[in-house]
């Protein structure tokens, strides 16, 4: 069996999904329409197969020291049952990857990383493991199904053992759903719509997917592709590694100050703290445009004098509002929410304004 294959690939194909290769997997980008799927998650509930994500288990008596050295958030705040958004940063403070760290039990953690960065992250972990921590890559035996939207907990509660609405944001339990045991049920997501991420053993992934699809009928649940995942996260202003952030960008520049703690020591801390104190030269900022033309990665951003002040990293039409939205790096000295900006889209300069995020 090909290990880089979604357990539910057959479902996606037979449901008519448009499939695209991504990080070695064949992934559904949309089933019917990005806008319909997007709105289904915002207003109702949808299920994503995001099993391409990478999962590592880090354990051992010094695992907490190890994780504090390589991640920028405060690992000591993380108790059993908590999840934490964090970043792996290099010596220059650049973001090697953003990730979620789960404390499964004392001295045992799960790291959830971006699929495209998995190998690089694993090498980085091994390189800095002077703490005899045990590092296991379990990505090829774990599937990740995300059930997202305001009706996610009502839906899952019909088949769960525990009352899932009691799980607080960025907390998790390990329990059964519909007689499938040992599912990590995490109140996290990449949509801003609420809901859960379910980490399940590959052998149970099809059973769980089918069960949720079946009970989801009553809730008008739809399967959701990566296209809507991208528009949902963009409406919230969440960064996508590889588009908005990379190992040349530090968390301060990306507006992720809150995942870099001053009172802990980690690789890259000096640059990050210095940028925090003195302001970075550029910053990731949201913007909106007055026309419905999509600002795409790499497009140039100008001020009203015609000087280039930045570059687009992500953009789309918000399916929720119909407005053109995007993220891009702007020179720190040019950040002014009142002034117009101009983005060059196929030889035309389209007017817009900088905007706080989330966009909705």
């Amino acid at each position, binding site marked *: 069996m090909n290990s880089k294959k979604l357990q539910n690939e057959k479902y996606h194909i037979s449901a008519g999904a*448009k499939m695209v290769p991504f990080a070695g997997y064949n992934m559904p*980008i*949309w089933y019917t*329409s*990005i*806008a319909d799927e997007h709105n289904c998650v915002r207003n109702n509930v949808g299920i994503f197969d995001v099993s391409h994500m990478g999962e590592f288990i880090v354990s051992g008596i010094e695992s907490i020291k190890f994780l504090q050295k390589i991640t920028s958030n405060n690992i000591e705040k993380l108790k059993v049952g908590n999840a934490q958004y964090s970043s792996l940063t290099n010596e220059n403070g650049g973001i090697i990857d953003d990730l979620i760290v789960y404390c499964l039990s004392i001295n045992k953690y799960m790291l959830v990383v971006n699929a495209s960065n998995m190998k690089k992250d694993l090498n980085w972990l091994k390189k800095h493991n002077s703490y005899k921590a045990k590092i296991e890559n379990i990505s090829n035996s774990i599937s990740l199904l995300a059930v997202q939207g305001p009706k996610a907990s009502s839906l899952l509660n019909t088949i769960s053992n525990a009352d899932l609405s009691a799980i607080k944001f960025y907390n998790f339990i390990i329990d059964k759903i519909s007689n499938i045991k040992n599912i990590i049920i995490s109140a996290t997501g990449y949509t801003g719509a609420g809901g859960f991420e379910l980490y399940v053993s590959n052998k149970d992934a099809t059973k769980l997917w089918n069960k949720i699809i079946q009970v989801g009928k009553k809730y008008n649940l739809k399967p959701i592709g990566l*296209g809507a995942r991208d*528009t949902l996260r963009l409406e919230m202003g969440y960064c996508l590694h590889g588009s908005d952030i990379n190992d040349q960008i530090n968390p301060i520049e990306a507006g992720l100050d809150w995942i870099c703690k001053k009172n802990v020591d980690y690789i890259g801390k000096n640059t990050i703290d210095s940028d925090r104190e003195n302001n970075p030269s550029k910053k990731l900022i949201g913007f909106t445009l007055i*026309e*419905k*033309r*999509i600002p*795409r990665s790499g497009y140039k951003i100008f001020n009203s004098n015609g000087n280039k002040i930045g570059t687009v990293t992500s953009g*789309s*039409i918000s399916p929720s509002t119909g407005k053109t939205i995007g993220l891009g790096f702007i020179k720190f000295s040019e950040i002014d929410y009142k002034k117009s900006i101009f983005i060059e889209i*196929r030889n035309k300069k389209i007017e817009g304004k900088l905007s706080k995020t989330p966009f909705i």
Partner: protein
Amino acid sequence: MNLKKLKYTNDHEWVKIEKEFAIVGITNFAQQELGDIVYVDIESLNQKINKGEIFGTVEAVKTVSDLFMPISGKVIEINEKLDSEPELVNSDPYGDGWMIKIKIEDELEIEKLLDFSSYENITN
């Protein structure tokens, strides 16, 4: 719309011949490949454009695609409804989602267009 009576191109446009005029749009296959269409940019009204040249662009959430003239001619009408409702190209590609009307310049070019079954072969 009887799809069997339309002509097609390798670039996934359909052409409906009406005497010396031709109506042009993109096929159902094309709209499915593009996904949600958010902008149709056609600024070639009253221009004479040769076969194979670009008459506009269509912008979908994930991609931008050029639109090519299936036959040479003058663009005499554009579908203004697409300005405010570009999604018509997705929902009704052969009807309300039409794009331009052309005054045909060279009728011999019509014969070089694909018929329904030839077009079906390239999309299967």
